[in-house]
């Protein structure tokens, strides 16, 4: 079989094997079995790199192989196990393998000493397996199954330290919010299946291209699929789980909630783009744009370092979704890849910082102070230089500073939104959302850097104990920091201001199969035309954001506290994430719980008590009645009565035996009379 399919099979099944080994035998293996998972994922990485090299070698934008076999045959419905390998797949596989390997390595030191160490690695392998399933799948059923598994892995890993109540409930929240999204996703899949008769991508695409599936139904299906993406990629209003997911270990946050799992939603949208109708895409774009701005406004006031990064992720995902909505879906994928690198790096960096804080506080026997609160940090630059430099590079990337990868991808997105607004002037809000979010992104990221690494230490007694992290933790930082530079994406070209490179050349957009949608060519033209204006504006807003942050947090000529005081209401809204969780709790959770209580009351106190017990009581009364009937009536009356009357009759008849002849004669005469009477009668 095709070499790519062969490698894909290995990539698919190796982490599964690692999971099974670790979950059953992990504890008994030496070093608790972490080498099993790490070995598996590194092997996967090697194979991905090989495939990637092969892709670069052939440099074919239309490369695609597909292979499947029937796994479950249900008559007129089969569940296929199928792989679709094309350039997008290979790129994504590389991203997943790379970040997953980094997380595996980072965790060696980060999770050292944890009592459930082997289980942690088992879950990481499970996640890798499921994520690969999403990437490799050629049909919606396998995609959905892997989707669910990814959600499960997320739940297991977020709530890994389940003894902590907040972690356990965060895991549940993540899973349930995902489930809500999955309802829409499943409805979308079912709509497509009913209309097409198959869940395989190629069949669906053919059907739409032939015009069998159009109009409102297709829009609904598209929106259904998108709702799944909303849940998985944490878009408003299903974004609530991602900030809470920070309860999990930081390598997990880096892997899942920065680079791969949350990107699955975007990935799925990228795959399904050809069947999205313009109406559905408008919906997608607005959700994405709004989320981007909304999350950014929350990020600017957060004090927990991981929370800032979490909201940042939500915001960046919003960017990607908006890009899909405006038609520039390859730009979305590009940003997905660059974001994976620099966001994961930022998370690793924060993990490194938190690790150092933990150690320092432990040494000082301080268990009260929050090691993740940036207000307790400051001045770490000199103590943790490698971490600082790696995070700086990634921050510059995310802020969209030229010469870094983020600039290219963000630029493409913003150009796409400008182009869309130009073609459809009524959607002018979208670029406004985009550029405002970009401004805020630059601001809050540099705020994070200044508060953590610059200025005077806020807790002077700690600073002595702050050390750089061990090499297992700094290695991923350096690697991914390096990948945040532009160069890796623009080869063989060297222009830092142009995204022209292997990426844009082998990953080409496909024309939408929906009738009436703009062709891929038209979209690309639009992006190119608006490229320059987008670049200029994004540099300007990015620079302004950095400047503002510098003013407030480094130079401190504008007091942050004073600003907070002046815009007190806005400040508090932002700090409390606009009270979304509280609103949901009051208007959704509580009424449903009340309903559940009421139904429970109905069943337990009313139905059980009256109907069920009632039956019991009626039966009891009835059996009492029959008992009385039987005992007093039947037994006493009839049975005993027969005895008594027999006794009486016997007594009477005994009297006949008098022993006297005369009586006998009398009886004989009586008999004679009777005989005579009967003879004459008859």
């Amino acid at each position, binding site marked *: 079989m095709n070499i790519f399919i062969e490698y894909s099979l290995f990539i698919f099944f190796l982490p599964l094997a690692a999971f099974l080994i670790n979950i059953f035998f992990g504890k008994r293996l030496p070093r608790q079995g972490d080498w099993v998972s790490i070995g598996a994922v590194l092997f996967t990485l090697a194979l991905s790199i090989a495939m990637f090299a092969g892709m670069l070698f052939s440099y074919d934008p239309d490369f695609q192989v597909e292979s499947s076999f029937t796994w479950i045959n249900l008559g007129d419905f089969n569940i296929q196990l199928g792989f679709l390998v094309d350039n997008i797949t290979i790129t994504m596989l590389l991203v997943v393998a790379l970040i997953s390997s980094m997380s595996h390595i980072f965790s060696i030191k980060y999770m050292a000493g944890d009592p459930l160490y082997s289980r942690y690695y088992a879950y990481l392998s499970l996640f890798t397996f499921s994520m690969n399933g999403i990437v490799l799948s050629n049909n919606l059923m396998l995609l959905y199954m892997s989707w669910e598994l990814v959600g499960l892995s997320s739940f297991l890993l977020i709530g890994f330290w389940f003894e902590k109540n907040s972690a356990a409930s965060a895991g549940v929240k993540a899973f349930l919010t995902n489930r809500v999204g999955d309802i829409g996703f499943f409805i979308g899949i079912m709509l497509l299946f009913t209309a097409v008769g198959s869940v395989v991508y190629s069949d669906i695409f053919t059907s739409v291209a032939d015009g069998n599936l159009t109009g409102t139904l297709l829009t609904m299906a598209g929106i259904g699929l998108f709702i799944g993406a909303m849940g998985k990629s944490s878009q408003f209003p299903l974004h609530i789980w991602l900030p809470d997911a920070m309860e999990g270990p930081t390598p997990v946050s880096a892997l899942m909630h920065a680079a791969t799992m949350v990107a699955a939603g975007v990935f799925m949208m990228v795959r399904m783009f050809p069947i999205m109708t313009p109406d559905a895409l408008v919906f997608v774009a607005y959700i994405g744009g709004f989320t981007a701005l909304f999350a950014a406004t929350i990020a600017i006031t957060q004090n927990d370092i991981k929370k800032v990064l979490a909201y940042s992720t939500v915001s960046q995902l919003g960017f990607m979704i908006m890009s899909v909505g405006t038609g520039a879906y390859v730009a979305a994928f590009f940003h997905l890849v660059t974001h994976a690198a620099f966001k994961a790096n930022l998370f690793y960096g924060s993990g490194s910082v938190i690790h150092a804080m933990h150690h320092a506080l432990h040494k000082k026997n301080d268990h009260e102070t929050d090691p993740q609160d940036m207000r307790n940090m400051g001045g770490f630059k000199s103590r943790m230089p490698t971490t600082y430099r790696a995070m700086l590079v990634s921050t510059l990337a995310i802020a969209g500073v030229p010469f870094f990868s983020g600039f290219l991808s963000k630029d493409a997105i913003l150009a796409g939104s400008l182009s869309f607004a130009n073609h459809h002037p009524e959607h002018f809000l979208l670029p406004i959302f985009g550029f405002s979010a970009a401004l805020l992104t630059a601001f809050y990221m540099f705020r994070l850097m200044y508060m953590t690494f610059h200025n005077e230490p806020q807790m002077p007694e700690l600073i002595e104990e702050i050390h750089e992290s061990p090499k297992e933790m700094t290695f991923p930082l350096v690697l991914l920091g390096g990948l945040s530079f532009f160069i890796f994406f623009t080869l063989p070209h060297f222009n830092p201001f142009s995204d022209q490179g292997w990426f844009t050349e082998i990953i080409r957009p496909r024309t939408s199969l929906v009738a009436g949608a703009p062709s891929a060519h038209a979209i690309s033209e639009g992006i190119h035309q608006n490229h320059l204006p987008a670049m200029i504006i994004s540099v300007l807003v990015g620079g302004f954001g950095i400047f503002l942050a510098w003013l407030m947090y480094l130079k401190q000529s504008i007091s942050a506290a004073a600003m907070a005081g002046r815009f007190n209401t806005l400040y508090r809204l932002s700090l409390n994430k606009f009270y979304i969780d509280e609103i949901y709790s009051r208007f959704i959770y509580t009424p449903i719980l009340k309903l559940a209580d009421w139904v429970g009351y109905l069943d337990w106190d009313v139905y059980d008590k009256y109907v069920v017990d009632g039956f019991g009581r009626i039966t009891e009364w009835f059996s009492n009645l029959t008992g009385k009937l039987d005992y007093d009536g039947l037994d006493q009356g009839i049975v005993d009565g027969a005895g008594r009357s027999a006794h009486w009759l016997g007594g009477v008849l005994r009297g006949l*035996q*008098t*022993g*006297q*002849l*005369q009586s006998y*004669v*009398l009886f004989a*005469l009586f008999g004679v009379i009777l005989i005579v009477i009967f003879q004459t009668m008859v």
Partner: protein
Amino acid sequence: MDQLQNYLFIAAALFSLGLFAVITRRNAVAVLMGVELILNSANVNFLAFSRFGGMNFDGHVFALFVIIMAAAEAAVALAIIINLYNNYQSINVDEASQLKR
């Protein structure tokens, strides 16, 4: 009134009275007397039928034999009664109730 039915009625009456005596009377001799009455009623019957049935003398002969029989029976009966009296000191038929067992 020389009618057959009259004689028959008389015989029936005597028979009933004799029967009554047999059933009712406590004394054994009284019972015997009742038996005699019965026998006599039978005799009257015989002779009545003999007369009103063509003067057939068979009836007479039979009645004669009845009288002979009555004599023999009375003798034996009285012998028994005397025996009874000697053994039980009483001829109350109620007390001769050993058939009860």
